[in-house]
């Protein structure tokens, strides 16, 4: 077969579809991708090394900034790891755990909304992106009222949460769309009644969108496990593995929810899993709200002013928005952590690009990158 010369093309680091500063080196044979390699490191901020010079609470705002689209989940991972390090010395109040889980699930909805919206926009559907942004803003206004920050919250503390929910934020189950940015019940009802069906109708049911994503970037279950994929990428390939069910942490064993699992492992399945996960998150939030409305109490355990965990090391993992967020903390008995190692799912998932891209067209790179949902802040840390 006669072939033309292969062309090496740089995608990024300032390409609008690369979700941050990611440079993809792509070899093209005509329109066909033959080789793809991500080049990372543009957002490196020395998070792990920096944590060694900070006290244990001072690391929390830095964990926010690793994955800035799901900041609370990162905080939750680090905070629970340090609490585990303390063993029985710190008992987190039940209410604080419910607040954490509720906030984490709301955060998962925001993160998935943005992942879906930006993927749809990269594939040419600009309107759903605006709707996703609008709905995400409503959660952000709720978070602003609860925590004081819009994106970077610094809300969880070792031993609980910084403050209780403000009065009237829970609302009543009858709250409708007009209260979507005032009460959590209002948003959840709005989400169930409007946002979720609209997404299904507008994007998932769209035949053109299905053509762009189905049978693109197929990742088999064996490959997904071999490449240490997790979260929606793993479940999109048909592996039923969710840390909230399989290794329950916090209070997830008391909550009822299902795990959506895909079949083919293509871009559409990963999209579909995210969309269904948002609905499951709203189910979890409802159960937490029902519990929180009835059980007032303290939200902060009694912790010493200067935190000095006993000597030891801990590896704690939780189900983040993009996959398995994990944290390895080593303590030498002092006020500063001896070592903090961060396992970021986006970094692990980015290595799927050389596997998934070859054989597809240039335009499909965008679909694959959008479906594995990387956040470059988390890749580089």
């Amino acid at each position: 077969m006669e072939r033309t010369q292969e062309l090496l093309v740089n995608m990024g680091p300032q390409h609008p579809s690369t979700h941050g500063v990611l440079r993809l080196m792509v070899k093209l044979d005509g329109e066909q991708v033959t080789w793809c390699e991500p080049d990372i490191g543009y957002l490196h901020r020395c998070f792990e090394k920096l944590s060694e010079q900070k006290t244990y609470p001072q690391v929390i705002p830095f964990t926010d900034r690793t994955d800035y689209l799901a900041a609370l989940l990162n905080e939750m991972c680090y905070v629970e790891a340090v609490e585990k390090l303390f063993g029985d010395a710190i008992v987190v109040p039940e209410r604080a755990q419910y607040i954490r889980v509720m906030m984490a699930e709301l955060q998962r909805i925001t993160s998935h909304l943005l992942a879906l919206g930006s993927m749809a926009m990269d594939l040419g559907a600009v309107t759903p992106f605006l709707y996703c942004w609008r709905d995400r803003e409503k959660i952000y206004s709720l978070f602003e009222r609860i925590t004081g920050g819009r994106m970077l919250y610094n809300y969880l503390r070792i031993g609980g949460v910084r403050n209780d929910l403000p009065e009237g934020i829970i609302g009543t189950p009858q709250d409708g769309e007009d209260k979507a940015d005032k009460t959590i019940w209002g948003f959840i009802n709005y989400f169930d009644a409007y946002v979720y069906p609209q997404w299904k109708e507008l994007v998932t049911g769209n035949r053109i969108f299905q053509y762009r994503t189905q049978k693109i970037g197929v990742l088999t279950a064996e490959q997904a496990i071999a490449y240490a994929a997790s979260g929606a990428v793993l479940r999109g390939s048909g592996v039923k593995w969710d840390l909230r069910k399989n290794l329950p942490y916090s209070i997830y064993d008391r909550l009822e929810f299902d795990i959506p699992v895909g079949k083919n492992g293509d871009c559409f399945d990963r999209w579909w899993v995210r969309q269904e996960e948002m609905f499951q998150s709203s189910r979890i939030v409802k159960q937490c709200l029902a519990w929180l409305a009835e059980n007032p109490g303290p939200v902060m355990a009694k912790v010493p002013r200067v935190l000095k965990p006993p000597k030891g090391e801990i590896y704690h993992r939780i189900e983040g928005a993009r996959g398995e967020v994990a944290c390895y903390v080593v303590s030498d008995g002092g006020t500063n952590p001896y070592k903090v190692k961060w396992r970021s799912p986006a970094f692990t998932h980015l290595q799927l690009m050389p596997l998934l891209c070859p054989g597809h067209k240039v335009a499909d790179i965008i679909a694959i990158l959008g479906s594995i949902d990387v956040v470059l802040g988390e890749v580089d840390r």
Partner: protein
Amino acid sequence: MGVTNFVGEAWRTGKSIATGLKITFREMMFRPAITVFYPDQRDEVPPWFRGIPVLKTDLRTGEYKCTSCMQCAQACPVNVITIEWHQDPETRKKVCDRFAIDMSRCMLCNFCVEACPFDSLVMGYDYELCKVDPENLVFEFEDLLRLGLKYSSAEEPGPKAKRSETPPWVFHGLTNATEDDIQDVRGYLGRPPLPKGYEPELKPQFQQKQAEDETAATVEPEPAAKPAAEAKPEAEAKPAAAPAAQAGSTDREEAGQP
């Protein structure tokens, strides 16, 4: 691809386009618009908002509440707080020479406010902190006190209240105090010292003994003398401020007489 398959696909594609147009049309015509035209309209800032950290002043004495204890500087994860102080040889108290926050590096994490044992720092509502020159982003003591006046209130004289269970930084109420609300500013805010015997009016939200002096106020023909009369009993509790307050009230009365 057979003909029936092609027709089916074309029908489904056309249907999904029509669905998309229907939803877009519905959003355009029948759904509420959410755009906020920013410089003209602004979203309401929630009470726990974290803007620039600012310093509070005690409006009754005009003293800043910071005691240079360095707790905030130690709690800061990014070391943006610079405090320089010296010890006053007479009163043996720490006097703050410089308190600067480098807002180009501050990440608004609230740790300094939580660490402050004297309820001196508060996260303000100001969020438009753009400067042309980045060096201007270092906010000095005067700037922070000036910005913090909005959240300052007149403290009850007497021993310092202990840190309560519900921390004060949780709800920082906006009192909208201005420089004129301060009783005795000793040049901290960089303006010329106030004339001797100056006795400003306390705004209603700072008047705590209004009910007691209502009868006196009705007898007094001049309403400006009312806060001065009110300030007297509290000023007596603070011996340092008492002569100034008394002098102020007498001056005002004399001036009012002719």
